[in-house]
């Protein structure tokens, strides 16, 4: 007799961005099925922006997600600029990257300290850690405040930036603000290094050890970073961003408002660890040293390494932002915006959002959006995430269900999923 037992479920996974659950079906033969239920409602971003004026659509896209709204804004703006045949000046590009880095620092700090760390120190809620882990909470707030202040200054506000526009910026901060930004980045660097040290000591569960295919945007100019026009895979393959549909296939699954994706027929991973795995040779500075010393922990075969890879990036991007600000200051004074002519065309932008590859493909006709395709990192990751939760479940389905739920949630949290992003974006 082959019994099927009540599913082990977490209806609403806490401490992730968005609303999703895990369902593990167990029978006498072991784990039958694992499903990540994505239950947040659809928002149809591609559909609602069709036929809309380009600037209005660009104001709406960042509303897909709060944790990475700057990533959405800047990727959408780049796709639109490629479509209309405009290339921003180098100094504008550098400052946009600083804005993007602000998002990266804020997002990584929030994820690592507020969402992940409580599991490792035995708290259900990061705010309860204040008394016992005062130092960590202090560092988390400092990093988060630095990131959100950078976004605020360059983007007009910490969530849903309106200041990044076609042709450049609405307004730029003064030279003194950029100097202050450099100073604050320098002061915060030791806190980023402390974060790396802290996370290098946390367990990376062996249950989910195994081969993973990683995809990441190949950074421009051979410097580890955010923008790029090619996607590289850890299997050695490389293809231009515009060809993403030839290599990555999306499909609808019935338990999720977010679609799943396969690369050459198989699940794959994107995110900080994928960037590190594919492009560690392009790191420099302190991050390069840390990488060399801890390669074994930043390995390609375990999703938990994503947490440490984010900590490594806190160090890297803090240093990188300082250099980018210097590049911009060398060209001071900077005109914030160039006139753009809204011509017809098609453009694809691929960038590295905090959680991995973000794709925007936009077609512009008569000043309006004629086609929009957006694929977010979490949508890319869902299939792989399910596979890793399954690996965890196969080792623990006979244990206390509460223990299994906890471990399954930790796997999901290591991916830093952004469920709001994943729902409602993706077009056939």
């Amino acid at each position, binding site marked *: 007799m082959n019994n099927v037992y009540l599913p082990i479920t977490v209806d609403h996974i806490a*401490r992730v961005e968005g609303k999703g659950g895990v369902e593990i079906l167990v029978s006498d033969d072991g784990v039958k099925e694992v499903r990540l239920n994505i239950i947040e409602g*659809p928002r*149809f971003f591609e*559909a609602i922006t069709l036929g809309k*004026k380009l600037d209005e659509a660009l104001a709406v896209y960042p509303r897909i997600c*709060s944790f990475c709204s700057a990533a959405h804004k800047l990727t959408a703006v780049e796709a639109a600029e490629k479509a209309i045949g405009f290339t921003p000046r180098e100094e504008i590009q550098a400052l946009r990257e600083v804005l993007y880095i602000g998002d990266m620092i804020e997002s990584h700090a929030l994820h690592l300290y507020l969402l992940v760390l409580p599991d490792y120190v035995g708290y259900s*809620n990061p705010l309860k850690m204040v008394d016992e882990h005062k130092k960590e909470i202090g560092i988390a707030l400092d990093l988060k405040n630095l990131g959100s202040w950078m976004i605020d200054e360059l983007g007009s*506000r910490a969530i849903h930036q309106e200041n990044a526009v076609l042709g450049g910026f609405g307004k730029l901060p003064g030279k003194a603000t950029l100097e202050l930004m450099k100073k604050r980045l320098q002061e915060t660097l030791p806190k980023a290094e402390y974060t790396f040290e802290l996370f290098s000591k946390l367990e990376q569960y062996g249950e989910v050890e195994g081969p993973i295919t990683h995809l990441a945007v190949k950074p421009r100019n051979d410097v580890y970073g955010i923008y790029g026009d090619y996607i590289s895979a850890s299997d050695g393959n490389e293809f231009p961003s515009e060809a993403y549909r030839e290599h990555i296939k999306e499909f609808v699954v019935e338990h999720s408002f977010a679609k799943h994706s396969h690369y050459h027929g198989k699940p794959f991973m994107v995110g900080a660890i994928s960037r590190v795995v594919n492009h560690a040779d392009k790191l420099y500075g302190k991050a390069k040293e840390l990488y060399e010393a801890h390669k074994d922990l930043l390995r390609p075969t375990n999703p938990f390494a994503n947490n440490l890879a984010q900590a490594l990036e806190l160090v890297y991007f803090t240093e990188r932002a300082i250099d980018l600000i210097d590049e911009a200051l060398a060209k001071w004074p900077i005109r914030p915006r160039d006139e753009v002519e809204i011509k017809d065309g098609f453009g694809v932008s691929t960038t590295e959002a905090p959680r991995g590859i973000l794709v925007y493909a936009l077609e512009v006709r008569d000043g309006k959006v004629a086609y929009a395709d957006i694929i977010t990192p979490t949508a890319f990751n869902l299939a792989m995430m399910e596979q890793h939760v399954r690996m965890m479940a196969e080792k623990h389905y006979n244990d206390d269900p509460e223990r299994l739920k906890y471990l399954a949630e930790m796997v999901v949290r290591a991916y830093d999923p952004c469920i709001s992003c994943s729902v409602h974006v993706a077009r056939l």
Partner: protein
Amino acid sequence: MENGKVRIGFYALTSCYGCQLQFAMMDEILQLLPHAEIVCWYMIERNSYEEEPVDIAFIEGSVSTEEEVELVKKIRENAKIVVAVGSCAVHGGVQSWEKDKPLEELWKTVYGDGKVKFEPKMAEPVSKYIKVDYNIYGCPPEKKDFLYAIGTFLVGSWPEDIDYPVCLECRLNGYPCVLIEKGEPCLGPITRAGCDARCPNYGIACIGCRGAIGYDVAWFDSLARVFKEKGLTKEEILERMKIFNAHNPKLEEMVEKIFQEVKE
């Protein structure tokens, strides 16, 4: 209240989680903790209980699935004060932009023939289903909006609503007028203030993220006339005003009126 602590719940419907993020990112939240007990807040608390009674329920997001209709009703039953937080909860959010298109059409554009086991519906504001006691506006709300509302509740008083437009704050700050001086379609004149004219400060036209001013003082018609004189079509005006006001019952008829006026 138990042990003198206010019981708080923060619930998410369909949204970007930005309102909660804004709330969670306030350093002042640490000062709130000794006075509050977080009963439900999935974004930061693993031990969250959706069906427990609370003093104040903050709801973010639009009602976009049948499950969320049931959830808001349960929250109302269990809460003394219900606060709708942010443009999605208060006005249905940007996902309501095409609310007049059939849901099937939007679904097909994004999901093709794919099916899921949950029941989606067109986004709607929370107040469509339950009584809302107070609104916090914005996409996202300003941190001071949260501080003001919570601070006022904690001292046992009631926060006041804002009934004047972004223009007022913009004039007080002395920013160049985006509408008149730059000629861009700024929605400042009809949009609820409280952001300190954030976007006009950057030389960027307001897109109305805090929603239209209430109390029937959002003069869509006057602004539509100005936009019309600048050469915008009725459709363009409606589309822009609808980004954050798709569910406003007055919007269409007031804009329509301007296009029926006889040319002088």
